[in-house]
């Protein structure tokens, strides 16, 4: 399953949804001669807005994932 936005959020043909996404990754590691530790984190800021029939905002969801980096 795609978690960072290569796939579209939805496949609605005439969706009343707008989505915005900003991806950010970080790699942290310790590389010694005989020991490697690597931690790879990908986080996204995502905003999804749903509109009603009159094209007014019905509800929205927002997640500031990059704050967790």
């Amino acid at each position, binding site marked *: *399953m795609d978690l960072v936005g290569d796939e579209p959020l939805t496949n609605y043909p005439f969706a009343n949804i707008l989505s915005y996404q900003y991806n950010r990754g970080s790699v942290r590691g310790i590389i010694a001669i005989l020991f490697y530790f690597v931690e790879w984190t990908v986080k996204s800021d995502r905003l999804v807005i749903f509109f009603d029939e009159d094209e007014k905002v019905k509800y929205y969801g927002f997640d500031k994932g990059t704050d967790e980096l």
Partner: protein
Amino acid sequence: MALIKGLMNCNRTFVLIPLLMTLTCGCSIGRIYKGSEIRCDPNEKIKIGSTTKGEILEIFGPPIKIQKQYDGDVFVYAYLQKNSSVLTIEEPYFTNMLIFEYTREQQKMDGLVILFDKNGVVKNFGFQKGTKELTVY
């Protein structure tokens, strides 16, 4: 006789020690985290038949996938975590031979699927917290 045995043991030691010294043992640990953790416990926050789509968006944020069904939408939330550990023993100087390799890889996901009816009210949901099954090493 005892002297000959002693000399043979001594020879073996002289051969084995340099051989063991050429072996290299390496260890690598990897962690991959993708997505955002599911914010709250869905079993506490979601009330079937009363929680609305707007409330779900407010509580859990935007889903990673929205799917349309004939009788309502489906929201999918997921958080993926992958841990890997590798231990290798090799001889890197003369033969470049890998003698032993042990790899352990675990991939777990927290998944939440919420089904809505046509009015945008939660019809049902499924939640699995897979990442708690991950071991540290």
